[in-house]
């Protein structure tokens, strides 16, 4: 039982109750895509890279500028 309790969050994470292909109506919408505004994201990354000490996370670290 203890093992089961420990596994529950992992089970939830692994989506062990799989969403079937015919149930993907919502997930297939463009606004549900994780990268639905790539240019906005690239601009944000560039601005924050040049003003803050952190970068990357969603994708590679970014950078490639002197950004003074």
């Amino acid at each position, binding site marked *: 039982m203890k093992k089961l309790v420990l596994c529950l969050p*992992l089970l939830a994470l692994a*989506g062990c109750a799989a969403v079937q292909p015919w149930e993907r109506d919502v997930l*297939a919408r*463009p606004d549900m895509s994780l990268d639905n505004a790539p240019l906005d994201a690239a601009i944000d990354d560039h601005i924050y890279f040049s003003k803050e*000490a952190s970068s990357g996370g969603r*994708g*590679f670290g970014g950078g490639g500028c002197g950004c003074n």
Partner: protein
Amino acid sequence: MKDTDSFNATLAAATCALLGSSVATPVVAAEEAGRWSFDSTLLYYGESDDRVSDVSAAVSALRNFGDDRKLSATLTADTLTGASPSGAIALDRPQTFTSPSGRAAYTTSAGDVPLDDTFLDTRFALNASWTQPLARLYMFSAGFGFSTEYDYTHLGANLSLARDFNKRNTTVSAGVAYSQDDIDPVGGRPLPLSQMLDVGDNSNKRDGSESKDVLDLLLGFTQVLNRTTVLRVNYSYSDSSGYLNDPYKLLSVVDPVTGDTLTRTPGGLGPDGVYLFESRPDTRTKQSLYTEVKHSFGAPVMHFAYRYMTDDWGIDSHTGEVRLRWPLGDGYIEPQLRYYTQSAADFYHASLVAGTAVPRYASADFRLGDFDATTVGIKYGHDTSSGNEWSIRAEYYQQNGSVPREQIVGNQANREQYPDLSAVIVQFGYRFKL
């Protein structure tokens, strides 16, 4: 618990443990095969107090060649003008500095945080990537990036591989990126911790370029949680080595009692105070954990993201972001909120105190200090009858920092110590197909 249930639970746990933590996503909007689609944007970024302003244009082209084989390329042009804090502290007297080129001097008014106003640059960047399935369930991607500006060149490449599991409800990915940047500062590279010299005296500067290598590793895990929710978790590791200094940043050397910058008598035109060029370590290792959840409440969609970053310079940061996309007529409205906080680098010094040992590494760059930043924004997007989309986004960015109490000496307590920043961002976007 029945034996079969127990087995399933154990297997799932084992799988979860193996998967650990995306480069690719399991759910991607389908682009029409055989057609080009474009995403373009025009951006204005302007900081208050005549600091940096940037006008940037970017266009991204994407073509699906069928069977999920896609080419994408983005071209960006930036024009930067304005002034940037040099790292020197504000004083009750005007201050004169030698410009980075070493050929002129500039003066900051009494009470003002010194800004280097010789800042002008144009940057061009090109990024391209190719994505294709490698086998059933496997997706491969390769890309490169190049950018150039007056004193800086960047060249990088990346590879990533993703595999779907669990009826494509789970995607695990791994990626690697490598880049080499060359820095050729205006007026030469100052020797770290050397003193700013008179106009025309370049004896503390070295000609030629220096380079910086960056290796990034990314492990990604994307999971469909249910019919309306998707989760992404990324772990990234980044190792930078080489020239990591900012060649234009200074530190004021101050009197231990008054906290005012030591005076210097220029031999002609030159600085009237003692300023040293900064010195940073030549390696930096960063690690971050990024979590993102996207959830649909019927038509509205909420995006939530959190990132924790830590590095071996002593900087820890937390970033949280929420966006809510709400349908409105033929389009949507999307309020956005972001909060960021970071701790200072171990070698961050607002100033250096005369008479004490000069540390090996020191920087007064405000971006390495202790600060919080908030971004509030709103985006409106509109779908046209021809299936294209235009959008406008407006954001306000505010940074508030502080200098550790033990670093504040004498009169510094009565002046602005940290160059707080506010900026306005306005962006127009247009997406269309040909």
